């Protein structure tokens, strides 16, 4: 749609942006790297879908003082090839997305640190009444310069208990048939759990031909101590806050409760044997 060196002029604000190159394209919008007149770098997201762009502007404006969301600068229309397009100007994030990192393989300790950070972000968004339902590696950027994790693409977020607008089937609770496609705490836990499996194993099984039980079985070894927490998350109803706390203290509680269960079981057996002997 836009070429290198094109100049974009906003209809309402009159600001000028010079297009450098295309960064990516999604189903709805295209993203470009642009410079303004003072030679500052920005990312430009442009689309003819008014609803989606305006929605993203609204969400990003409410997240202006959050570290994990790209800072929003501008919303405007532009006339291109006799057609009105809508765009937002956001902060340009230097770094790469998680998809690229995951393909190289991520060590489990590092992956758990990433997931803790992501869970924290999801919780913070949830507290603000925003449910981020399209969590996937290509929507998560690792900003090496400022050492932070940034979620991009807020056009598909929804409110509590609303219908999920956009999703990726592999990370979607309803596609795996373990719950409704409704934005609630369990939905967020599920997608975070799936993301962790993807980060650790570097691949995802398709939901057409596999069940959750199979996914868990194949990834059990690699998940190690996080296995139980992930199993609960993939149940579809696990509370996001509990998942976060669980990961935060390294699944300590889960392991303790597992050992306590073992000890309880063993002591009951000993008790029964003693009873039999006594009789």
């Amino acid at each position: 749609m836009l070429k290198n060196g094109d100049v974009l002029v906003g209809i309402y604000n009159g600001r000028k942006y010079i297009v450098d190159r295309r960064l990516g394209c999604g189903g709805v919008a295209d993203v470009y790297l642009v410079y303004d007149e003072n030679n500052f770098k920005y990312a430009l997201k442009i689309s003819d879908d008014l609803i989606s762009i305006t929605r993203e502007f609204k969400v990003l404006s409410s997240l202006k003082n959050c570290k994990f969301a790209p800072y929003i600068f501008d919303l405007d229309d532009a006339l291109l090839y006799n057609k009105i397009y809508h765009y937002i100007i956001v902060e340009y994030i230097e770094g790469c997305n998680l998809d690229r990192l995951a393909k190289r393989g991520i060590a489990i300790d590092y992956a758990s640190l990433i997931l803790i950070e992501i869970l924290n972000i999801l919780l913070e968004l949830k507290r603000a009444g925003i449910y981020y339902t399209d969590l996937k590696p290509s929507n998560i950027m690792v900003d090496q310069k400022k050492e932070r994790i940034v979620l991009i693409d807020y056009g598909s977020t929804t409110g509590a208990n609303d219908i999920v607008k956009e999703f990726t089937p592999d990370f979607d609770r309803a596609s795996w048939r373990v719950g409704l496609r409704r934005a609630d705490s369990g939905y967020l836990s599920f997608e975070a759990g799936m993301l962790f499996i993807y980060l650790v194993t570097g691949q995802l099984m398709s939901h057409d031909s596999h069940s959750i039980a199979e996914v868990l079985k194949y990834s059990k070894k690699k998940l190690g101590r996080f296995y139980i927490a992930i199993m609960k998350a993939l149940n579809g109803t696990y509370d996001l806050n509990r998942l976060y706390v669980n990961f935060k203290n390294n699944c300590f509680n889960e392991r303790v409760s597992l050992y306590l269960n073992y000890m309880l079981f063993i002591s009951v057996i000993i008790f029964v044997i003693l009873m039999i002997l006594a009789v």
Partner: protein
Amino acid sequence: MFEMSIRQIIVVTDGKSNVGGNPADAAYLANKKGITVSAIGIVDDGILSHKEIKDIANWGGGVYDIIYSDEFIKSLSAITQKSAEKTIYKTLDSELMRLIGKNIEGLHPVLRSQIIDYIDKLLDMSNLKCAILLDLSGSMKNKLKKAVNGITDLLSTFKARRGKSELCLIGFPGENNVYAKILCPFTARISDIEFCLDDVKAGGNTPTYYAIEIAASLFENEINTMRYIV
């Protein structure tokens, strides 16, 4: 907040209409009756007519998507949403034009966000009637399972809505040289649709024009019977 009912037809095909008139004409006529017609084209075999898909959506006032059959689940739910969104958008747009002489695009971008909120709310609360037109011609045979999966999946999207949602399933062509067969009339009960999805078979040609026409008339019958009851 005003009550709104959204009526839409979604055509799912992998080929080109080869019986009857131009499907875009049927889509246009349906759109005039207040029904939004959208289309999903499955491109696997390369026999799909891209132009036809685009034309159906353009004349039917809806949206389109051209996909591989693997992406069907995601696409069907996205198209249903987008098409409903577009219907509400258009209604509000003309309403606003009537009230203040400006449409949504004419407003200042920052002001628009309040209207978007309203659209989101309406989208969730309104009554949705959706007719899915499933191409059952010979070439669809090996994609049918994925298509059926997609439709069952759409039902789980509907379950999460606050408003009433009804689904109707039409296959074209029907058996014995019938242009289209109503596999399942409008229903809100998921078991009804799952039941009729079991015995879907593919074979025959592609009478897209007639299928859209029949689907549109189905909405109309509904309106007439409603009047009758009143």
